[in-house]
């Protein structure tokens, strides 16, 4: 339980909600990262605002880490990727590549990820998003249990 951080979690979550609210009321767009990102690829649609959003997202994370290091993870390298469970004997690059492929492919055909379905879809009371969220949270929990990665 020592890692449980309800206050920064709720503050960060509110900022994410505010980000989604700004994009929705300003531009009428869903702040779904897989969608904003995926539609940069051919056949690309509206490219410029998507690039602006994604570059700003990186800058926002970076600037916050510089200005308020104590709020978040802290340190120069606040996060490392988690190595695959040793018992599986899979080299880390292979494990990472498979995970990335599944996430890219799955969010594309399922039309959304944690932000698009999870934050925006549930806020819009979308039944499709509720189903997607239940499935990806359920499957992710099963995956963590089966792989024993933590």
């Amino acid at each position, binding site marked *: 339980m020592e890692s449980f951080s*309800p206050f920064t*979690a*709720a503050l*960060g*979550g*509110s*900022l*994410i*909600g505010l*980000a*989604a609210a*700004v994009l*929705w*009321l*300003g*531009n009428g*767009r869903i702040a779904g*990262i897989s969608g904003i990102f995926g539609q940069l690829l*051919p*056949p690309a649609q509206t490219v410029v*605002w998507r690039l*602006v959003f*994604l570059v*700003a*997202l*990186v800058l926002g994370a970076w600037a*916050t*880490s510089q200005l*308020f290091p104590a709020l978040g*993870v802290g340190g120069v390298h606040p*996060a*490392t*990727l988690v190595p695959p469970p040793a018992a599986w004997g899979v080299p880390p*690059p292979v494990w*990472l590549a498979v*995970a*990335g*492929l599944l*996430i*890219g*492919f*799955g969010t*594309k*055909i*399922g039309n959304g990820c944690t932000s698009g379905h999870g934050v*925006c*879809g*549930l806020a819009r009371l979308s039944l*499709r998003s509720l*189903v*997607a969220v239940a*499935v*990806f949270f359920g499957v*992710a*929990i*099963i*995956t963590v*249990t089966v*792989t024993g*990665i933590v």
Partner: protein
Amino acid sequence: MANLRPPYLITAAVSGLLFGAGLYVSQMVDPLKVLRFLDFTAIPSGCWDPSLAFVIVPAILVMFIAVRIGRRRPAPLFDVEFHEPEYKRIDTRLVGGAALFGIGWGMSGICPGPAIALIAFPPDGIWLFLAALIAGSYAGSLIVPSGRTRRLADAK
């Protein structure tokens, strides 16, 4: 082109900045923290980290209010319409796609937002991960029909 005007692009930038700040402050950029939420086997021993729930619930509540405000307006401030997702059907692609995403998320603790935010302080392996994410998304676009008309016809 409405979506090249400064107010439109500034809105996208402000939203992106807030989103990135939120991911950092909530520590959702840390894959281990996400995996500690997804590890329900830690609940009996009291080592489970419920933080992710404390991130997503306020995010949904703030966006829920924005959606209510938007419903009373004919259009967003800087575009002619709200771009509501067009699909309505709950089909194999939705469930299958969500399931595949769930496997990848459970393997890595990284969903697309944090994957991009991590570019700010790139850990070893993030570029490989992003390349795979792009390749997977592109592969998916080959089987998802392109073009608004086809998508709409398919969604009925």
